[in-house]
């Protein structure tokens, strides 16, 4: 692995631990530091994609013509996936910490930044699960690798109510109707999906679409929380051309699997720029087959 990967990894982990112990004094400084870390983790995520391309350019969906799975470089593939999962989690944590600090600033300045209530249950449901040791491979054999999950209650997140109702609505039609009654929904999607499937190399272009894969709910700051359209299935085409990869971290995502139950741990944040919908912050999904 490149050095910057481990540097960023260690930075995020130590920062998380630092926050937990109240090491940082200046909150503003914290935010800046966290944003910096967040930036690096995002870059790390991009680099990890590149690593994947370089190491396993034609990974793993091969089958022989009669259906027997051909052995692919599984160990490399597993490693890459583990690394990406870790990065996804780290990005989620870093992002959550940034928002948490930001909200605290807003509160101290008497600025309403959205929903601050929430129940303990919601917190437990919405908070990123701490990584187990088995999920983190040490960079060097024998080196200790400690991880501390953030201790601040993420149930204070302004979107807690939204994702609670949304996640209920995944299985419960009545809750889904309540969600629709409670929030004004705009449907958006990647306008370039088919072009990208036809070989166009470009970033997703999000627009208001009648058949979009995402729903956007306005937040209190003039931007939008973005969640998957109900009953979305996450598979490779949704992940790639559909734009899920761009909008959400999808921990545990396996391109060979289709996930028909998709819940939200954290919504993405978008802002509207004319007709364009621009992602401000990636969300995070909870996937279930």
């Amino acid at each position, binding site marked *: 692995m490149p050095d910057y990967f481990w540097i960023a990894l260690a930075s995020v982990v130590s920062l998380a631990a630092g926050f937990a112990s109240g090491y940082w004094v200046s909150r503003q400084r914290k935010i800046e530091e966290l944003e910096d870390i967040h930036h690096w983790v995002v870059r790390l995520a991009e680099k990890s994609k590149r690593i994947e391309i370089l190491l396993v350019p034609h990974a793993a969906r091969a089958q*022989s*013509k009669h*259906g027997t799975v051909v052995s692919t470089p599984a160990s490399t593939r597993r490693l890459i996936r583990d690394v990406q999962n870790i990065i996804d989690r780290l990005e989620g944590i870093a992002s959550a910490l940034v928002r948490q600090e930001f909200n605290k600033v807003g509160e101290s300045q008497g600025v309403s930044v959205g929903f601050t209530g929430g129940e303990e249950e919601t917190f437990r449901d919405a908070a990123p699960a701490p990584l187990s040791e088995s999920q983190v491979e040490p960079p060097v054999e024998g080196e200790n690798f400690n991880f501390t999950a953030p201790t601040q209650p993420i149930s204070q997140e302004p979107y807690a109510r939204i994702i609670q109702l949304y996640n209920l609505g995944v299985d419960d039609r009545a809750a889904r109707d309540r969600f629709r009654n409670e929030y004004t929904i705009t449907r958006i999607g990647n306008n370039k999906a088919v072009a990208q*499937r*036809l070989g166009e190399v470009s970033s997703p272009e999000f627009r208001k679409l009648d058949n979009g894969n995402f729903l956007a709910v306005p937040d209190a700051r003039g931007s939008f929380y973005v969640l998957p359209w109900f*009953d979305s299935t996450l598979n490779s085409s949704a992940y790639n*051309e559909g*734009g899920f990869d761009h909008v959400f971290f999808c921990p545990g995502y396996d391109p060979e699997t*289709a996930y028909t139950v998709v819940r939200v741990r954290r919504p993405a944040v978008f802002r509207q720029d004319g007709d364009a919908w621009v992602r401000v912050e990636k969300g995070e999904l909870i996937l279930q087959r």
Partner: protein
Amino acid sequence: MPTPLLPKLHPNHNVEQLTEPGEWFNRSADELKHISEGLDVNNQVQTQINSIPDIWARPLLFESALLNGSHPLHSQILGEWRGLLAMLALREVKNLVNLTTSLVEIKDDAAQPDFLRALHRLKPKGRSISADTDWGHLYVFLYQVGHLKSPVGMTSPTTLVFTSSHYANHINQNEVSWFDGRILQDPINRLSNQEKKALYGWIGELSGNLAASANQLNANLWNRMAGLLNSYLQDIGVTGTFTAGATTFGINGAAAGVFVHLNTPAAAPAHAPSESHVRLVSSADRTPSIPMLIVDGNIASEWRENPANVVVSGAATLASIPQNGLIQRNQIGSFMINNAQLWRPDELLTKKLYVVRQKDAFAGAKKEEWVGNSPVLGNDDVSVILPINDKLLEYLNEDELLRRLKFSQGGDGELTVTLDLPLSGDGVHASYKFRKTYARTDIVDFEKVPILEVFPNFVSAKWRAYFIAYSADNPRATFRVKPFAPHAQEARIAVHGNPNAERIIWRTDSYPQALVCYDGQEKAGLIFPSAPQTAPPTNRSFAVGVDFGASGTTVYKALQGDKQPVEFKNRKLVVTAVDPAQSSQVFDFFLPDRDIRTPFLSFFQVFNNHPQDAAELEPLLHGHTYYTDDERLGELQSQENIETNLKWSSGDFERLCAKAFLGQLCLQTAAELVAEGAQSVDWRFSYPTAFSDSHTLAYKQVCQQITDSVQALTGVRSSQLVHNTESVAAAAFFEDYQKAQTVLGTIFVDIGSSTSDISVWQRNTLLWQISLPFAGQDIFLNYLYRNPSVRQKFKLPDPQSGDNSEADRHRFYAAADAILRKDNEQIFARLPLIASQDDVDRLKNHLALGLSGLFYYVGLGIRCLREKKRFAEAEMPHFYFGGNGSQIFRWLTNGTWVTSSNPYNDLFGFVFKKAVSEDLRNYLKIEMSSLPKKEAAYGLVCNAILTVPDNSHKIVFAGENFRENNSTRRWDETIDAGVLTDSLKPPDRLEKLAEFVAAFNEFAQSSNGQVKKFDFNDQKAADVRSRLANDMARLAFERAQQQGVVVQPIFVLALKHLFNV
């Protein structure tokens, strides 16, 4: 209020007072007379008094009330009398099978029960309308409800019939509509005109029969009875004649008296369903197997008609609808309907209304009409699945149905559907608007639409192959469909990694007019795909050339000499506007959303849904051509179940795939030609001479089967099936398109992916043709397979496993070939920038060596021809190169190819001369194809003036010495499959190969480093020889196993190994 048991007595009565209630008193029989005479019946009594303990009181009271117009019960009794007569009259018309009679004989006979004897003694005396009709011979009318038969009336000598005192609930109101549950009513207002006519005829007949025997009648009674009958006739309001029914009541014999005139009911009118007022009128293009009769009481309301006047079938009218509204397909009330089906209008609409939370979700479907705003659910726009039972499609076509359907939305979100049903009508009305309102609880919303597409999107008189594709990632989130087609062939496709998904392809023989939607097993309504385009009249004759290549396949068409590549237009109808995440999936199992240009890759993706040991794979059902020219080429090798070695594989399954691939190709080609008005096609296929005889034969048979099948499916007549060798077809292209001269001596070489097809011409006549299994894969792609640094420089994919297996190499060849073709110009633009790098330098030297080998072998062939005096000229022949592999020349010279000042041109000329003879005059001139890869397909459809002898001159010169049966045979001998035996061995020394390398190195020596020498020492020669020995043994074995083997020149076998040692 007290209920009177008896009327009051008038003041002058003679009834002896009854002093004690509840006590029995003995009185004489006269007392009854006194009572009857003493009753004050003229007072207005509103209830029937029947407490007089006289068994005959009821007929007497009935008589009294009926015949006395001023009797307080006259009106009621008259109604009951008329009602009972109507039951007798209309027993067949109304199908009152539960009405029967039973004879009661009342005699004073010792053998009779006491009760009857008492009745006899008490029966009225001297009161009868006719002398032959007596109170002792009566008929009881019984009516059966359920299992219970109850008397509801009886014959009477004075009034013909009378009703029972109590018969409430003893007549089925659903059968006798004028029975109010308690008593019979005057039926006139409850009868249809047909029924009235029948009743009129029957009453008239009764009256006439009675009048005919007037001399026997009691004049007084008869006059009053005749008056009643006449007024009955007048009140009926219509006239009719009597037709006797087929049944009787069993009232006959002399003892029956005038009652015999009641014996025969009127016949039921013989209505056919076509005379029904409520028959659904079919669209002109529909011929339903059985008429549909719409049964709904509201039809009469809408028409402002008496329900009894709205004929359902025969005597059954809307008045026959049971009060609970229940009908069966063939029964309404007591009427059995045998030659039509009864449907309630609400059965013609779905129970629930299904919508998709998406605006314009059915972009490729016909649109319904909304009164007012488009529908919404909450804040979401929705699209509605038409809530129509597909049964209606047997009667009404989709356009008429759509025209007759209107939607509107109410203030509470409820959706109302109005279905205007065309009915046969009653001469005034001809339709019925049925309305159904779906409350929010009756509306089911889906979040997604599935992929739903149809190919092709046109109709032509004889086209019989339509394909419908359906795919849902999560069927819970959307609806399922089935095409409305009687014989749809269905193929389900498993979706890797998603066991929940549902993916189906149907083939139907007609354009799908409707798709039946389902929510689970429940029918959810219909979608009408948009109207197809209409193909132009078919009056054109085309020629089509198919060059089935190992890597790519090219198709050309010619119409009156105009030759054009066939382009498969996007002829799909996309019915649903699926979300972006789904839309791209269609590439993986159906036809892509774009036009396909020729050539395209010869890849076929198998769905693994075919039966085991399938003798046939149906194109698009069991697999599809994998069009990937510009899609995900980097992932090509990892796609599932893609067959890339269609052309050369000898495996049975691969041959099936090849046939399905060609089948789809011909089907799509036919679609293009039909869209241009094709009536017939000359199909022309090319094949390499390198095919073994058995492979060639099998290929020709497959082509025949495919073109026969396409003719049957598309209606495009296959006027001719021609096969030509690829080398001759390519020559025809050069002659026609590039105006090549073939008089002095011309050599055409089509370097494909797996073979180089060579033909040698002189005096416009073919001298020699051969398919050398030495082409792009051997010269170029195999080098890329083994050299990662070169791949990296040109951004080519890595092999999937790199294990050198045939499967892995073929997958890599396919992907690399596709990328090289797509990125051709960018690569050539990049080539000069990196040309000096060692890797690229080595690649170019490798390519030069490979092409030199090709020139050398052709030179050896020309030398043989010259020695046999068949190639007459001493001039250097003119070379034309085509095929995708001809791009190799451009790699040598950084993207361009010129003859002059080109060291490689000099190299090839030098090597060629070494092979032929040093005395060849002039220099080598090489021309490249203007349409690389399209030569053979073009050549198949052009009319080149070239002579191809019958024996086609398919000659394989050995090109290298070899040993057979321990004797050495010379390089210039011709060989065929017969040489491939265990006795075939390599020579002790590879003389010609060594001479070739020597020639190559000799040129390299003098090229100032532009061409590098090839290091070929004794050890490498021994290695090549060893590998050659293995090849020979393998080929001999394969031939012994009856496998079709390709006869390759010994020189070429050795040349291939030269690259690998």
